[in-house]
């Protein structure tokens, strides 16, 4: 099956940048209520606003191979890049994941994230791949970054993005993020 690319298995077994580190500007805890997967994620920025640099993303994740690997790839992609670049990567990742297989992903934008293209064919797994990203954008907001002008502001997955056996729960997953961006 095309879901479990070698690169995903590798990231899930040896996740990059794992563990919680100091210092950090914001820490968030996100849960996928369907399966109980959890991630605690910290963000440390240098600079202000969207031109700030993502100095560190550290995390403690308990989840499936897809969510663990996706968070590993996320950390590796955004650390050392600007918030704007990180949000662009997120938008590209989300576009690919919700494309139902139509968007193979752009390696320039999302790096190893392209290995997750197969996830888009399994609607129930999309939120696994996005758990870390949702936590990351939430942490950025809590760190004082206004992401409302970016496509990430619409990161809350609409019901049409995700078709799972438990749509209510899928919606719940993202409320914390939507709520925060609308506060």
């Amino acid at each position, binding site marked *: 099956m095309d879901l*479990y690319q070698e690169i995903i298995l590798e990231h899930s077994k040896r996740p990059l940048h794992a563990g919680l580190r100091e210092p950090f500007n914001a820490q968030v805890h996100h849960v996928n209520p369907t*399966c109980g*997967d959890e991630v605690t994620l910290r963000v440390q920025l240098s600079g202000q606003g969207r031109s700030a640099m993502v100095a560190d993303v550290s995390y403690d994740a308990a*989840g499936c191979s897809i969510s663990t690997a996706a968070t590993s790839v996320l950390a590796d992609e955004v650390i050392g890049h600007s918030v704007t670049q990180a949000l662009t990567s997120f938008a590209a990742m989300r576009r690919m994941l919700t494309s139902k297989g139509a968007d193979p992903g752009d390696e320039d934008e999302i790096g190893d994230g392209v290995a997750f293209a197969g996830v888009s064919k399994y609607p129930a797994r999309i939120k696994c791949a996005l758990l870390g990203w949702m936590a990351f954008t939430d942490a950025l907001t809590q760190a004082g970054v206004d992401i409302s002008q970016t496509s990430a502001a619409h990161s809350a997955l609409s019901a049409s993005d995700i078709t799972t056996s438990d749509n209510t729960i899928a919606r719940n997953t993202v409320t914390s993020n939507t709520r925060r961006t609308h506060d």
Partner: protein
Amino acid sequence: MSDIAVGAAFTTAESAAIRGDFAILARTVRGGKPLVYLDSGATSQKPRQMLDAERAFYEQHNAAVHRGAHQLAEEATDAYEGARATVARFIGAQTQEVVFTKNATEALNLVAYSFSNAGATGAMDGVDPALAARFALGVGDEIVITEMEHHSNLVPWQELARRTGATLRWIGVTDDGRLNLGDLDTVITERTKVVAFTHVSNVLGTINPVDVIVERARAVGALTVLDACQSVPHLAVDVVDLGVDFVAFSGHKMLGPLGIGVLWGRYDLLKAMPPFLTGGSMIEVVRMEGSTYADPPQRFEAGVPMAAQAVGLAAACDYLTDLGMARVTAHEHALTQALLDGLAQRPWVRVIGPVDGKDRSGAVAFVVDGIHPHDVGQILDDAGVAVRVGHHCAWPLHRRMDVTATTRASFAAYNTVSEVDALLTALDRVPVIFGTVL
């Protein structure tokens, strides 16, 4: 409980005939693989006989039940009330003790809300004070549930405790997935007003000793509420024999349609209870100043009822009766034993729940060493094997068993031993793909 009726598993020919009634079982999934449906604990598949009954209702008798005097209205009402009688017979109940709800969750909420609604001014006027007192709940009173409850028999009681100031307590679960009955006398006390518990765990498959819990609850004068969602489809259930006061179950898990559940309650209790959902159908007299309410079961069936679903559910009851519940139980027990034996041969698999077939139903949850259940389920799905992954709406239970989530296979009468083999074969790919064994 050792009183599971003795029957024989279905023969190969009988199994083939049963499967022929379920069109969906003939389809393929994930690129041409035969569907192996092992998720009946979530929802069962539907036999043609049930679908035909619903279609016949809509094509020949459809009208709003309990309204109008035209012929179709009479036929629809007869069909709906006839369905109630069939469902009642299926569980050994009196017809007027069966309330149709939209699902089991609503049935459980109906009972939970009866306690807090009973506290409203005038809600229990005309009710025998001794009976009314059984529904009075406040600070100092206790509600008892168990740690193995599905969220639908857990959250409504948490909320009831919050609304009334009562305290929620629970019976714990042992490491091998049984209720910790050593706790019984300390958890269920004179302060306990209601004990709500599951007949069969939707995760562990454990069949709970209803008689033991009921005996203790009765001794302290507490009402008992049984979640029978995972028992009624699989075991012969007689509500009078069980001795509980209320029983809730869903239609869709027992070969019936979605959108209908059942609450059974002792008639004197139902009669004492204030309404839950209010509106049309459930009234006696309505005046601008206030209203009075119909007797049960109508009191609890506000709005135009789901007649087609009731007819479908009755057809499902008839289907199960024709199969013979003793044989359904025996058949599923054989499948469960085959799966438990197969899993026992795989040291990298750990069953969450009783590892033997005693007092156990056909929900088998397990974890694979080092591999998340979502990933296990994905590999099984790739082989056409449909199981459930996650916490199965029993998050506190998973926490108690020290696992984040599990993979669960669950059986119904239409499953076969070769499907158990298909699951085990697909399962063997899991450690290979993830490189965790050898």
